[in-house]
């Protein structure tokens, strides 16, 4: 369907900082545990495309997405559909979604014609967002150090997403699983700064960087 183009190699915003290994105080989970409380990694390269229609066009837009990539946006605001490895659709605003997936094709090229049909806008933000993956039983605490979103499992379980500030950087956070695991979308220019803050906030719980 979509024209296939060879995708140019991409460089992560974190190359200078991302060093796999374990850091900080391991075993903070109490006696008997010697593992890290959180793991942190970057999902790269990711395709992130924003699609937007006019308010009222939600249904048409949803159908178009379904046709184009096989999934439909979840009902309601601040929800995610799809899964971590395939395409997923994250609500980011009124009649506005991110479509994201690990890069494997020209997602932007695939979505544009579908949106064009009813005057929706498609904007490639793949390079504009760095996507972090934060997981582990202390992941909520790490987030809580820098953000005011209520990530309690009762209100922010798998399938939920929300936009907020994290260490003073605007982010989109999505809950992926019950570990809990979170995917965090942040502006690329701030990625390194945010990475450093997340690492710093994780040290007391023990951190594994993948």
């Amino acid at each position: 369907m979509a024209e296939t183009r060879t995708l140019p190699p991409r460089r992560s915003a974190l190359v200078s900082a991302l060093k796999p290994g374990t850091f900080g105080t391991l075993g903070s989970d109490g006696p008997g545990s010697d593992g890290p409380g959180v793991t942190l990694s970057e999902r790269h390269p990711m395709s992130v495309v924003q699609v937007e229609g006019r308010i009222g066009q939600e249904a048409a837009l949803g159908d178009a997405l379904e046709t184009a990539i096989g999934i439909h946006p979840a009902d309601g605001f601040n929800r995610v559909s799809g899964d971590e490895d395939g395409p997923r659709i994250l609500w980011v605003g009124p009649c506005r979604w991110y479509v994201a997936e690990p890069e494997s094709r020209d997602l932007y090229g695939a979505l544009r014609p579908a949106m064009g049909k009813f005057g929706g806008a498609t904007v490639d933000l793949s390079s504009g967002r760095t996507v972090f993956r934060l997981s582990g039983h202390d992941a909520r605490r790490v987030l809580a150090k820098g953000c005011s979103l209520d990530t309690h499992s009762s209100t922010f379980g798998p399938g939920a997403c929300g936009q907020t500030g994290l260490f003073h950087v605007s982010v989109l956070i999505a809950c992926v699983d019950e570990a809990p695991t979170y995917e965090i979308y942040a502006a690329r220019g701030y990625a390194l700064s945010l990475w450093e803050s997340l690492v710093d906030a994780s040290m007391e719980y023990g951190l594994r960087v993948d």
Partner: protein
Amino acid sequence: MSAQDRRLPQGGEVDRSTPMRFRFDDRDYQGLAGDTLASALLANDVRLVGRSFKYHRPRGIFSAGPEEPNALVELRTGARIEPNTRATTIELYDGLEAASQHRWPSLRWDVGEVNNLVSDFLPAGFYYKTFMGWPGWMFWEHFIRKAAGMGRGTLDPDPDSYDKMNAHCDVLVIGGGPAGLSAALVAGRSGARVILVEETDGFGGRLRGERETIDDKPARHWVASTLAELDGMGDVTLLRRTTAFGRYDGNVVAALERRADHLAEPPEHISRQRLWTIRARRIVLAAGGIERHIAFADNDRPGVMLAGAARTYLNRFAVQVGKIATVFANNDDGYRTALDLAAGGVEINAIVDPREHGGTWRQKAETAGIDVFAGAVVSRAHGRLGLVGVDVRDASGKNRFLASDLLAVSGGWNPNVHLTCHLGAKPVWDNALATFLPGDTGPDMRVAGSARGLAGLGTCITDGYAQARAALDDLGYSKSALPDVPVTDEPQEEPVQALWQVPGKGMRFVDYQDDVKVSDIALANREGYQSVEHLKRYTTLGMGTDQGKTANVIGLAVLAEERGLPIDKVGTTTFRPPYTPVTFGAFVGRETGLHYQPLRRSAMHDWHVANGATFVNAGHWLRPQYYLRDGESDVKADIDRAITREVTETRGGGGIVDVSTLGKIDLQGPDTAELLNRLYINGWKTLAVGKARYGLMLREDGHVWDDGTTSRLGENHYFMTTTTANAGPVMSHIEYALQVLWPDLDVKAVSVTEHWAAMAIAGPKSREALAAVLDDVDVSNDALPFMGVVECTLAGIPARVFRISFSGELAYEINVAADCGEAAWEHVMRTGAPLGILPYGTEAMGIMRIEKGHVAGPELDGRTTPADLGLGRMVSSKKPFLGAPMLTREGLTDTDRPSLVGLVPVDGKSRPRAGAVLIADPKAVPPVDKLGHVTSSAYLSPNLDHPIALGLLEGGMAREGETVWAAFPLRDEMIEVRVTGPVFLDPDGERMHG
């Protein structure tokens, strides 16, 4: 090391198996785990610990909690020094070092005590009446500042770290005493999300200092079992050493957790303190009460102590704070102290009680063999460095002396209403209880236990249950059975009888810390400082580090007496956060140093670092300012050489600059051209696909706001750029326009600043370079004319190329996805190397745009109009646009408004600096008429070989050829400059268009 003479052999919460060494002033002592510095000092019979603020009166330990006004010490040393720290809240750790403060040369021999001798000359506010004449206030101030202050702080960098935590809960319980614990229990059992914060290191509240029983067992068993149950609940968070210090809007409570203050140093990776921001649906405040004292003569002698504190030292810390004690109380709680002290082996002289009554407690005391002097008062304390005795005046007015080394005072209890007032509620006076009770706290906060004036353990526990239950009802949690009401042993209490002061000669202190006496309050009243707020500010009542926790109510009661008004007519001063002082560090958390604000880096940042760039801040961004080469260093000569090189080589051949920081907005939709038409002063309906146009935007008030280019990429697809500084504001304004002003416009706006890395190639060889860089694109002047736009690829990377120019050169801006930015940049550098393409920074860019007369930040200063900037002809008269209506006001169209000109030094070499003021007469004396100012200046235009500048000048271009003076008196510079056109280079744009 001295023995702990005053420590009892058993009892208390202290751990006798874990001794701890500590040092106070120059002596070493030993205390026990579980001690506070205060209890450890008292255990070692140290009574003198501090000096008062104004008169340097010797002071001892007065309380056992955060209300302490006297026992303030400098804790720790060096960069960790903490002045004004209450000995009563410092948990003892092994190796602790503390020193007394605000005294010289030593605590016992303090020269400052002369102030005590001349205290009659130094009543409240004496300084307002003196120090006005010769040699002037600045002279006296020097000494007064030194004499004031309390401890010594440091401005050395702090070795410790801090952090923050955000939290949400259904019920926040503040205070872990009986009321708080029982509230948390009920809330926790209901399944609600609960946070319980307790200021001290353990739960139990007053119970930690009492001998009371619950269900016939020591109360600590009840505390332990309640805690165990709470601990096991998943959604209950227990925070010890955590003070809720402020209540803010939205039912948000800020709390300070002291994670490592009880240790010599924080463990690795652990913050010293943590700021909690807790968003609670409901708050139960169970903060207990604070005892108050009574103002009688010399009531500040070390050894005069709050009755409840004396009991706490005995019961919790197993310390006898005196051998022979007198108790002075106007309420029954004092009897409890007398009985406990007696049971703890302290000899009790008597209970001095102004009341005449015979209640249960009196009987209990008398049964225990304690004398009760009813209708009597303590009228004076004796002993300079430590109490030796007190004068007791009986009902008939007769005085007698009672030798005592401890006077336990209780003037009643004040509910700890602090947090009920932060949102503006005033506490309410209760005559029967002789105290202030919480006022209207709104539906989101409930107050439980003694914090709302309830007395009695059982009552406080059941009130905890009830308040929690009511909060849960509000939140819709289903009813569940309340826990059983435990059995307590509580004799009937007789009412308190208000007693604020005992008449008598001598200093009768109301506020110990700030040395405010009854006589100061009387004086303030006499002089007309009668509002309670004036009283506070004139006498400094309640303005010390304790914020008058023990003093304020007495102070305003005394004022009420002086004024002959009921207390509620006098009112309280305002309770303000924080409840107890909070460090800067905690408010800041990890936002220190380079993380003060997040850093924003372009996709080519690492390349710039590797290639000698020096960076400059542009908002959050870091931009390369210039590039130094091997052998060059950050000295002015090398920097100038680098900048000159970058300009010369760009104009001579070609240069490349990172412009990723410009704001970029993707606009799509059929009404985009209409939107642009309304935003910009110039017209947009005729812009063809594949073309760019320069636009100028005004604020609604008609002044220039922002400029940039917008390109038309497709039929309904546009791409706008903004200045770096206005990227955010312009985006927000567009969103405002689309959502609020013109919701019917079909435009979707997305900020794509972060997605696109942007670089500009400029210079005569830029076309050649571009041709080499791009994959098979015709970049000839015909195919890609000035202001043309083309989408193409570069080494396989999709790119957008815009032929626009800020430098005035033939120039192109290339945008690629940021993840490919560095690859594209390197590709340009590699491919362009044979053509001499070199990187340049913001300094060179600045010089080139000045040479070209392009306006930027210094000209777009929020006060200029398009006409001022020589852009008046851009203003469309055919359409409305943002700012048009206000642009025609007389002030914006005056002919004498300064407008843009070029300026060159008449001598060809002096540099008119930015910020110089333009004047006509170099000899004029102030005040000098000003004609304008130099906005931007290039120390040297490498192309013209002399300095050039832009300026805003009255008369503007009408003065072309005239000379004026660029005055820079800050550096004694006066430079004659000739007025020229603002475009110094290539005025016809042959380079750009070529």
